[in-house]
C-alpha cells in the first residue's frame, strides 16, 4: 500500500507545536480520567469479589438476603447446622462454620469530641479466619472474650485517624463502650480491611441482642443443595442460603447505579478533554487542505493522505493518553476509597492501561476525522484553491 514516509508524518507534528501540545494535553487528561475510572470500578469489584469463594455459603435470615446487617437468625443455628449437614470442611478438627454478627455502630477514638462515622463491626468466633482466608493478623493478637478487646483492619484504623503501626493498645469507644485495640489485621482490597472485629458474645451483650446475623460455612463434600435441604427441613428457623459469590454479586449489583454514574461521568469528562485535544489537532490539520490536495496532485492516493493524518493523530493522542494513564497510576495508585462497605484500593491494572490507550485511539480517530472531513468533501481543484 502506498504510504507517506513515517518520518515525514513525525515531522508534520513539529509544525503548530502549540496545537500538538494542546492535543497531547487533551488526550492525557482523557487517558488519566478513563484509567482512574477503571481503577475505581476495578477496585470496587475486587473488594467485593476477592472475598468470595465458590465453596462458601452464607446462611442468613429468610427475607433479608440483600443485607447481612439486617439479617437476624437464632444463636442456636450454627450448632444445629453443623449437626445436620454432613461434609462441611474441617481443619485440625475445627469445622469451617463461622457464626457472625454484622452491625454498623458509631465509633470514635477515646476522648474524642463526638463519634465520627459508623464503623462496620463484625462479631466473630475462632472459626472466622477459616472462612475468611484473605484476612491476616498483622500485629497483636486475637481479641479475648469479655475483656473489652477489639481488632481492626488497616483502613478502618486509618479512617479513625489511627496509624496501624502504632494502633496496639489504643482505646476506642464503640456505641458507648470503651474497648482496647489488641490486634491489627490486613485484607488488602477486601471490605474486611475496613472492618472492626470483636468476639461474637461481646457484641451480642453490647447490643443486647439475642440473635446473630449469619453463619458462614465452607463446604467440603456438601453442596449448597445440602444446606438448602437443611433450611427446608427446619422452616421454623426461617433461614435462607446464598452462595457467597451470589451475595457479593448482589452487592456489586446494589452499587451498579454508582458504578454507572462513575463510568458515565468519567466518560463525559474524558470526551470533553478528548474533543478539546482532537479539535486542536484538527485545527492544525485543516490548514493543510491545500497541502493534502497537492499531495494528491503529486500522485498520492487519498487513503495515503488520510492514513498519514491518522498516524500523526495517533502518535499524539495515544502517547498522550498512555502517559495520562501512567500519570494517574503514579498519582492515585494504591489510594484508598471509602464506601459504605468499607474501603477499596484503586486498581491500576492492565485494564486501566488498556482503556487509556483505547481512549487515545478514539481521540486519534475523532481528530483524524475532524482533520480531514473538510478536505474529503472538497473536489481537488477547489482544495487547491484554498488558502
Amino acid at each position, binding site marked *: 500500500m*502506498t504510504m*507517506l*514516509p513515517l518520518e*515525514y508524518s513525525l*515531522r*508534520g507534528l*513539529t*509544525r503548530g507545536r502549540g496545537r500538538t501540545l494542546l492535543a497531547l494535553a487533551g488526550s492525557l487528561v482523557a487517558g488519566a480520567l478513563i484509567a482512574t475510572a477503571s481503577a475505581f470500578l476495578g477496585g470496587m469489584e475486587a473488594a467485593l469479589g476477592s472475598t468470595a469463594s465458590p465453596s462458601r455459603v452464607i446462611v442468613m435470615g429468610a427475607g433479608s438476603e440483600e443485607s447481612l446487617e439486617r439479617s437476624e437468625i437464632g444463636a442456636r443455628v450454627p450448632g444445629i447446622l453443623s449437626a445436620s449437614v454432613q461434609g462441611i470442611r474441617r481443619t485440625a478438627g475445627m469445622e469451617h462454620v463461622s457464626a457472625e454478627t454484622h452491625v454498623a455502630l458509631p465509633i470514635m477514638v477515646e476522648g474524642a469530641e463526638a463519634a465520627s462515622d459508623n464503623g462496620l463491626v463484625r462479631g466473630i468466633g475462632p472459626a472466622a479466619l477459616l472462612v475468611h482466608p484473605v484476612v491476616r493478623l498483622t500485629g497483636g493478637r486475637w481479641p479475648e472474650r469479655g475483656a473489652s478487646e477489639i481488632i481492626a483492619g488497616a483502613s478502618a484504623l486509618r479512617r479513625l485517624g489511627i496509624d496501624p503501626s502504632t494502633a496496639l493498645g489504643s482505646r476506642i469507644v464503640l456505641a458507648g463502650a470503651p474497648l482496647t485495640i489488641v490486634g491489627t489485621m490486613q485484607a488488602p482490597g477486601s471490605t474486611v480491611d475496613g472492618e472492626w472485629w470483636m468476639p461474637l458474645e461481646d457484641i451480642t451483650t453490647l447490643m443486647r441482642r439475642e440473635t446473630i446475623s449469619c453463619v458462614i460455612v465452607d463446604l467440603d463434600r456438601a453442596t449448597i443443595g445440602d444446606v438448602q435441604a437443611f433450611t427446608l427441613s427446619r422452616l421454623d428457623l426461617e433461614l435462607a442460603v446464598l452462595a457467597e459469590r451470589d451475595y457479593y454479586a448482589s452487592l456489586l449489583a446494589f452499587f451498579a447505579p454508582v458504578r454507572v454514574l462513575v463510568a458515565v461521568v468519567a466518560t463525559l469528562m474524558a470526551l470533553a478533554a478528548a474533543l478539546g485535544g482532537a479539535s486542536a489537532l484538527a485545527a492544525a490539520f485543516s490548514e493543510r487542505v*491545500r*497541502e493534502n490536495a*497537492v*499531495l*494528491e*496532485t*503529486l*500522485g*498520492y*492516493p*487519498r*487513503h495515503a493522505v488520510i492514513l498519514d493524518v491518522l498516524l500523526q493523530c495517533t502518535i499524539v493522542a495515544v502517547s498522550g493518553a498512555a502517559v495520562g494513564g501512567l500519570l494517574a497510576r503514579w498519582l492515585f495508585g494504591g489510594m484508598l476509597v471509602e464506601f459504605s462497605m468499607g474501603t477499596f484500593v484503586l486498581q491500576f491494572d492492565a485494564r486501566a492501561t488498556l482503556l487509556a490507550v483505547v481512549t487515545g485511539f478514539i481521540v486519534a480517530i475523532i481528530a483524524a476525522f475532524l482533520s480531514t472531513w473538510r478536505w474529503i468533501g472538497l*473536489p*481537488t*481543484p477547489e482544495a*487547491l484553491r484554498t488558502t
Partner: protein
Amino acid sequence: MSLIDCRSLCKDYQRGGEVVHVLDHLDLSIERGSYTALMGPSGSGKTTLLNLLAGIDRASSGKLLVDGTDLAQLDRNQLAGWRSRHVGYVFQLYNLVPVLSAYENVELPLLLHDLTAAERHRRVVEALESVDLADRHAHLPRQLSGGQEQRVAIARALVTQPALLLADEPTGDLDRTNADAVMDLFGRLHAQRGQTIVMVTHDDSIASRAERTVRLEKGRLATMEAAR
C-alpha cells in the same frame, strides 16, 4: 498521435440555479514535444482545462485522451497513480511541503515509484541540478526565495520524467528576473529534452517564449497562433 487530444470537451458548473459552461465543446490537440502557452482573460477556464488535463478534475462531457489514456475511464485513485507516472504539475504558489527540505520535496513524488534508493537519490540530485539548486538540498522552503521555491517545485514536477509538464501561471508570483530564470529553464527543458509543456500565463512576453499560444474565450478556442 498527439499527446493530448480533446474532442468536444465540456465542463459545466452549477452556480445558483444556473449552469455555467466553463468549457464549451472545446477541441484541442497538443503534440508530443510541443510547448504551448494557454492564455485568456481571468475566469476563461484556463485552470479548469489544466486540471482536466492533469486528471485532477473531470469533464462534464466530451473525450479527453492524454498519452493514450482515456481519463474518463479511471477512478480517483487510478487517476492519482496515472498522474504520478505521466504528469508534472507546477503551481503559481509553488505549494512545497513546508516541513520538508528542498531535497525531500523533490523526492516526494518519486517515493511512489518502484526505484532503488540509489536510483532515487541520483534522480533527485539530477533534478535539483537541472534547476540550478544543487547547493540547496537541505534548505526548507521558508529559507528559499520565491524564485528558488518555484525552481524546487519544477524539479519536483520533473523528477518523475513525466510526458507532460503542466504549469499554471508559474511566473505569476515572481519578479522579472526570477520569471526570466524560470522561462529560461522551460525553454531549455523543451529544447534539450523535448519536454512537452502546457503553460498558463497572462503575460504576452512570457507567452512569447512558447512555440504557440492558445487563447481561451468563453469556453472555446479563440485563436491559435504560432509565436515563432
